[in-house]
């Protein structure tokens, strides 16, 4: 509820303070700007729900744009992107559930691995991405810009996974046990906890790859730095959206609103000419504030 009011508050403030904000061009621009963060944050929420974290999503987004900008046809690179994402998710999940590595360390290591490979593939930004990717983002359908449809589709898929399937319920159950220091509770109910945690990391990586595809379509090239610090934005969005970082409590609409708050904040700060460096600092402060105000802070696993 609070993030919703915050979002409306920022929107009203910007509508009054600036002329450009309420123009339809800026609104659609805002949606397109917010979309990669919304997609990444939704993915991040899957792992936060089971008491984990995924810091490798930022690198994975850059990696995805680098793959798409390779000199290869789209019908090869697009499936390849999701295949790699799934492999990265599986590897994160295996390291965390089987080797008992703390998720922050496991995904931090993965972040560096992917970053290195991305810089080998594409040391500086460049290349061109397949036309189908560009068209699916820049075009419009029935007069409505494509990013709106992306948003609807992503939310629909995520809702199905989180709130409309056994998988989602099991994620909540596992996270609830972790947050209450009874990590075996869900297993005692017959929930396959390790497999579900692994699948949560796979989902997180795949959503991040989708965000990468979207970003590649917007910048029309591959960029090794485009995903920089995205993981922190995503975690901040999840936390602002009311998901408990120790796991078990959270909602899809909260995360979407959390991402919107962050996007509005950037959009507003851009419109009011706040330096990007200060913006980064403000976002960091916001994350500290939100997590500091949460009653349970322990990060699970």
């Amino acid at each position, binding site marked *: 509820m609070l993030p919703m009011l915050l979002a409306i508050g920022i929107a009203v403030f910007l509508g009054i303070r600036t002329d450009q904000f309420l123009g339809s061009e800026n609104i659609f621009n805002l949606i397109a700007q917010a979309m990669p963060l919304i997609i990444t944050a939704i993915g991040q929420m899957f792992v936060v729900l089971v008491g984990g974290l995924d810091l490798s999503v930022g690198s994975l987004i850059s990696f995805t744009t680098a793959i798409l900008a390779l000199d290869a046809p789209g019908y090869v690179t697009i499936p390849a992107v999701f295949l790699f994402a799934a492999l990265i998710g599986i590897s994160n999940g295996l390291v965390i559930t089987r080797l008992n590595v703390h998720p922050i360390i496991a995904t931090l290591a993965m972040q560096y691995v992917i970053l290195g490979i991305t810089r080998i593939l594409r040391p500086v930004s460049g290349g061109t991405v397949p036309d189908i990717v560009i068209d699916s983002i820049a075009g419009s359908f029935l007069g409505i810009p494509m990013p709106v449809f992306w948003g609807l589709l992503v939310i629909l898929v995520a809702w*199905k996974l989180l709130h*409309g*399937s*056994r998988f989602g*319920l*099991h994620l*909540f*159950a596992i*996270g*609830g*046990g972790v*947050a*209450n220091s*009874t990590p075996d*509770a*869900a*297993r*005692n*109910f*017959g*929930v396959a906890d390790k497999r579900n945690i692994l699948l949560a990391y796979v989902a997180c990586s795949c959503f991040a790859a989708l965000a990468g595809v979207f970003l590649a379509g917007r910048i029309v090239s591959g960029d090794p730095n485009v995903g920089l610090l995205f993981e922190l934005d995503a975690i901040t969005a999840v936390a602002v959206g009311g998901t408990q970082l120790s796991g*078990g*409590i959270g909602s899809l609409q909260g995360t979407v609103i959390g991402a919107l708050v962050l996007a509005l904040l950037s959009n507003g700060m851009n419109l009011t000419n706040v330096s990007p460096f200060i913006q980064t600092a403000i976002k960091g402060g916001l994350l500290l504030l939100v997590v500091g105000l949460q009653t349970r802070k322990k990060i699970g696993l």
Partner: protein
Amino acid sequence: MACLVEMSKVSKSFGGSKAVDGVSLRLMPGAVHALMGENGAGKSTLMKILAGVHQPDAGDLFRDGQKVSFETPREALEAGISTVFQELSLLANLTIAENMFLGREPVTRFGTVDRKRIRRETRKALAVLGLELNPDTLVSELSIAERQFVEIAHGIKADASVFILDEPTAALNAADVEIMNAQIRRLRAEGKAVVYISHRMDEIFGICDTVTVLKDGKLIATRHLSGMTPDSLIAMMVGRELQDLFPPRGQSSSEAVLALEDFRIDPGSKPLSLHVNKGEIVALAGLEGQGQQQLLRSLAGMYHLSTGTASITGKALPLPAPKAAGIRQLQARKVGFVPEDRKEEGLFLGLSIVDNIAIGLSSVHAELSIAHDYQQKIAETISSMNIKASGASSPVGALSGGNQQKVLLGRYLVAGLDMLLIEEPTRGVDIGAKTEIYKLLRRFANNGGAVLVLSRETIELIGLCDRIYVVHGKTIVAELPAKTATEHQILNAALSA
């Protein structure tokens, strides 16, 4: 009549100690079976084996005459064995309905969880118990009693025929106890078998048909309750040989070191007063979890609901003690607190014996003062306490349990304190080390120290101490001289309170 469940010569060890040793048990339909025994007699372990939480080292389980084995609680539930443990196992962040169906949710043809159906069936299962709870209520919003009823409903829904209730009434108020007992009678009337673990005599005699008594993990007997009295039941639970382990008692003075007046463990509990004199070892005895530990820990600032006045050698100790500085506050008054769990709360397992003892000497000095070299003093302590290790610098984690406990105790003995508050001085320690620890504590008392100790082992308290306070229901219900006290007396005082 054929029994629903039979456990045959079941054994289970943890580390070196046998928690359950060759116990057999038969559960009949339409009967409430009480399981009794002193603290640590193996009741909970036995039931956890039946519930699939632990796997037995030896022995067999039979369900309706068929040999079975349960790897997980889920398998036990599927075989119709439902358990309500003291520590609740529901997930607080899910709704009642979600908890009921977790792990085998029905799905619609679109693959979504069939919420209509789980809501409907949950309401039905709750209605069997006469409960009108909304299935969409989050478990975190339920009272403890309601959570227990939900767990029972969980078993009913799974069509269980055996219900294990591990101290279901321990956390309930009188009205809820009545409801719980009515539910148990209903289960019996429907031909289910109920295992009932409780320390409340009136409940045992009120609702149970048969009783099995365990002691030290061994089966003592299974009897019909109709032929028993509370007295004869207690007699079955106690009666261990008093081993010749304990040093002779000393001379205590009448000078009080610790005195509590009008002390309440919880705001709602009855006030108590207590004193420990110089040269005296005083025990807090009673059944497990009756408030002994809260009493001790509230002095150390680890439990915060207590009120009243406390004084140490005449000087007042503010209550509740501050959380962060409670131990230091005690230390400044020359009182040491020895926690129960030496591995988790007491020792630094990775550090050497020297370091573990030195911290007791160093911690009284200011944070930035120069660390002294206590080698000489520590070497004396190690030899006088007879700590067996390959060297003073070997890590404490590598020592045996008894030697670890001695190192922990040594940290406090070497610091020149006036009083020790000790939880479980000999937990998981072999007989030889026990005797040595008793001697060390007696020597500390004879040199003018005072000791307040709690233990699950009543026999140890009788042998070691000078006076015994019996704690029950978060207050002191009796004070006995240890010289003439018996286990029977103590158990009786606790249970008749």
